[in-house]
């Protein structure tokens, strides 16, 4: 697997890695220019000492020193640029790419992964790999190149001293990379524990009310504290292990200096080596290790980068729902033909469901868990049926790209999803290019004027994360306005008016019936009033169609539907 693939880099990102490596190596090698100056100076001093040669003057050295300083600065500057200056753009590109890919993935992908995990991939994983390929790799490969060049030189001068000085490099690096198989699982364990702790805290924050109301605070906190302790221990263990490996490698590396000294001293004593030769070796060898330092410090990141990169790639490896780029439906009837659906764990949610929703209102009713919401999702291909087929206007939906298909659908979900934006902004999500007037018209139809008038900045008021500053009914009305704005020919309403009080519901119902004329509307509702005015009712029970027909027919038939209506009428009369 090439580096580009391994770290999920774009072409430009890869180019930057190569350039970064080049300039890092260049700056390292320039450093040896400085060594050359020192060496020459040293031999001048020795000559003065042993042969009485004149002392060198500043003038003869000045040009060399200045050139050295300038070249070093330039190479460091460029190395820095490619290591730090351009990476953020690459990370930005990666994040945007991942986010785009994510939104194209079928909803079934989201069922298996959890929110915190996916967000972490977008945020932290990108950062981890960013460090790895921008700093670690160029430093590491730069160091290898430097080492190689220096080694060639050293061996050329004196192979015995070269051996004495360079043996520690492969050994030190072997220790480090050998430790990887022990370190990697530890780092993964640390990450998992950290994630568990975040999830705990997230849950505690969400359930804060329930926890306090049931006097469970101590128990809950204890639970979280335990997880935090575990996470801490795991992190400590991991750090120690990593520290031992990294520092151990650094120590071993520098043993080469000691052996060079010893060997060199020995060779000088038996006359096979000169002082200047040893001096030169020591100068070079002492500087070979420094380039490895940077990447050794970051080696932990290199290891965890591998897992991070794999997670990022999983987004790209997950297959998209395939389909044609365009489709030509004839009309907008939504038809279910012997549709079956089950989740991954085998629970059969729908079994041989057949019905057609024509222009007008079709209501899906049934006890909870009977599969109504699932039908809505299958209709617009948010999920794919496991057997049978769903057609829209006569076209099998599985042959159409979900993006294209969704253009014809407007959906109001049961769990309202809003964003921390203005009321206007949230409604405008329905149709990006809608004019202000159109947005306001949709809002009015959904009875939003009533509460927006009371907000401090009216339609420009921020509504908080997931609309937390608004009540349930207000959030639902915004969700309805958003769907209305889209003006799609097929509308799916999943419990759209459930949170609305009587007054609001009446007004919204009226507006809806005006705006939804001529469209295919599939409604999932529990309030019989909504359902009674439908053109057709499909009763689902345990994933099967129990009855279907016009409300009048079903009431006359006296079956499941008639029973449900009676039940609700009775319970409406129930007093406390």
């Amino acid at each position: 697997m090439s580096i580009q693939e391994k770290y999920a880099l774009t072409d430009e990102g890869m180019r930057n890695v190569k350039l970064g490596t080049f300039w890092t190596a260049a700056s390292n090698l320039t450093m040896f220019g400085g060594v050359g100056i020192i060496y020459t100076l040293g031999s001048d001093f020795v000559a003065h000492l042993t042969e009485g040669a004149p002392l060198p003057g500043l003038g003869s050295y000045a040009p060399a020193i200045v050139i050295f300083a300038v070249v070093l600065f330039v190479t460091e500057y460029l190395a820095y640029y490619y290591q730090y200056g351009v990476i953020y753009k690459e990370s930005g590109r990666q994040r945007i790419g991942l986010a785009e890919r994510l939104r194209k993935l079928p909803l079934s992908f989201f069922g298996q992964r959890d929110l915190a995990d996916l967000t972490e991939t977008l945020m932290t994983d990108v950062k981890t790999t960013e460090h790895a390929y921008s700093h670690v790799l160029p430093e590491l490969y730069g160091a290898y190149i430097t080492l190689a060049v220096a080694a060639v030189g050293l061996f050329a001068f004196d192979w015995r001293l070269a051996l004495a000085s360079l043996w520690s490099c492969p050994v030190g690096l072997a220790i480090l990379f050998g430790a990887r198989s022990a370190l990697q699982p530890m780092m993964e364990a640390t990450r998992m524990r950290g994630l568990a702790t975040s999830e705990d805290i997230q849950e505690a924050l969400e359930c804060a009310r329930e926890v306090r109301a049931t006097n469970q605070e101590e128990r809950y906190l204890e639970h979280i504290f335990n997880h935090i302790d575990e996470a801490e221990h795991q992190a400590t263990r991991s750090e120690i292990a990593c520290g031992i490996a990294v520092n151990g490698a650094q120590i071993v590396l520098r043993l080469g200096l000691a052996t060079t000294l010893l060997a060199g001293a020995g060779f000088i004593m038996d006359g096979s080596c000169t002082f200047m030769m040893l001096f030169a070796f020591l100068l070079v060898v002492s500087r070979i290790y420094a380039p490895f330092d940077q990447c050794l410090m970051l080696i932990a990141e290199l290891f965890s980068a591998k897992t991070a990169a794999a997670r990022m790639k999983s987004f790209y490896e997950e297959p998209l729902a395939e389909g044609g780029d365009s489709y030509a439906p004839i009309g907008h009837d939504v038809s279910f033909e012997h549709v079956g659906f089950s989740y991954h764990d085998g629970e059969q949610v729908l079994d041989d469901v057949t019905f057609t929703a024509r222009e007008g209102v079709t209501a899906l009713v049934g006890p909870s868990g009977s599969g109504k919401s699932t039908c809505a999702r299958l209709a617009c291909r948010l999920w794919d049926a496991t057997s049978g087929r769903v057609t829209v206007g006569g076209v099998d939906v599985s042959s159409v790209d979900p993006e294209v298909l969704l253009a014809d659908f407007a959906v109001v979900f049961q769990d309202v999803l809003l964003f921390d934006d203005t009321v206007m902004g949230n409604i405008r999500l329905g149709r990006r290019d809608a004019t202000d007037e159109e947005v306001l018209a949709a809002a009015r139809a959904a009875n939003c004027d009533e509460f927006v008038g009371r907000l401090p900045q009216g339609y420009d008021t921020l509504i908080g994360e997931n609309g937390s500053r608004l009540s349930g009914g207000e959030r639902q009305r915004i969700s309805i306005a958003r769907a209305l704005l889209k003006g799609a020919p097929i509308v799916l309403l999943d419990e759209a008016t459930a949170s609305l009080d009587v007054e609001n519901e009446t007004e919204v119902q009226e507006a809806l019936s005006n705006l939804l004329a001529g469209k295919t509307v599939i409604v999932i509702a529990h309030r019989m009033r909504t359902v009674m005015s439908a053109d057709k009712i499909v009763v689902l029970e345990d994933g099967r169609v129990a009855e279907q027909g016009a409300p009048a027919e079903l009431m006359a038939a006296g079956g499941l539907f008639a029973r449900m209506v009676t039940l609700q009428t009775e319970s409406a009369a129930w007093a406390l």
Partner: protein
Amino acid sequence: MDFMTRYMESLVKMNKTGTEYVRGIPVVKVFQQTVYSFRAFHDAIEEFTRLAQDYAVKWCQTPQSLSLTVINGLAMFLAPAAILIAPGEGNFAGFLVNFAFYTIFSAVIPTAMTRVMFISDAVQSAADAVTRVSEVLAAPVIEAPSSPKTPQGNAIRFEDVSFTYEGAEQPALDHVSFEVPAGSTVALVGPSGGGKTTAASLVPRFWDTGSGRVEVGGVDVRNINPHVLMDRVAFVFQANRPFKETILENVRAARPDASRDEVLEALSAAQCDDILEKLPQGVDTLVGAGGTYLSGGEVQRLMVARAILKDAPVVVLDEATAFADPENEAKIQAAFKRLARERDGEPRTVLMIAHRLSTVRGADKIIVLEQGHVAEQGTHDELVQAGGLYARMWADYEKSVSWRISSAQEVA
């Protein structure tokens, strides 16, 4: 360091909008947004990229490169220094040895500096993190009373209560006063956003009133030991979240020392038998990821079971029947009836918020809240006669009920 703060803020913003984006993917898909049009996230990424890039290039590149040059190129100082010092040295051999030593030793410096650089980076981000933590720790807490008093009896009383949510301009409750006599059932009704949920949240002190007092048993709730308060009052909320535990544990949370039988009894009383039947592990099934997902109506019934098990003398019910399908609704209504049943011969005190005006009809007193004010209060009959807001709401409701019944009858 102002820059570091901006950088961290930008990072936090990117995380927040990223989380929103991921959570909102169904909406993003359905309304055909892309990451480009989902401005908040896209802009946060761009801003962060720009900040980080600017920092790296504009602020750091030159100083960093310079310092690296100096550190790695010590030769440029050592050489001139040695050249200048040399002529004055008496013991030249000694000088030479020193020279050799320093030129080799200076190789250590880059290593040491690298460590220092890493540490200073870490210290900076730690400093910023500590600031954030201090902010959270400095947030005002709901004070537990220093000398708690015991509530006498089970009445609830709101006395001239006003409350405004942080950052809001209009008060959610404005000089609200009403009484729930012990053993009576009082219903809070009114249009959405009128303050009903807010009022109910003040009883368990999820918020503290801005002015005025909320009393339980004659004692200001702020003076009651929080544990005692929570023991005395049972709550069933809107938008319930079960804990990620078994159903048994979820219900038992109200009274951890309850026996398994008692829990099963409470579940049965809350009409949850059908839920348990369809789960293979019954009451020992885990709720949530890794276990089973329950619908809104089912979770609500579990919460009622929890409240029943708790057997508290005061009950506060909030919006409990919003999501119910007819089957669930009938069951929930039966569950509530059971919950409000007498306890040791004494009727419970019940404060109830509902949308279903029909359920409210039998209450001892009805309080109509509109935009944070008590618009009207009285029994159902009194209010209908008075011909005000309640009467109008009731008329609307009757229309819808009769319409339903008539169309059902017509058709039958």
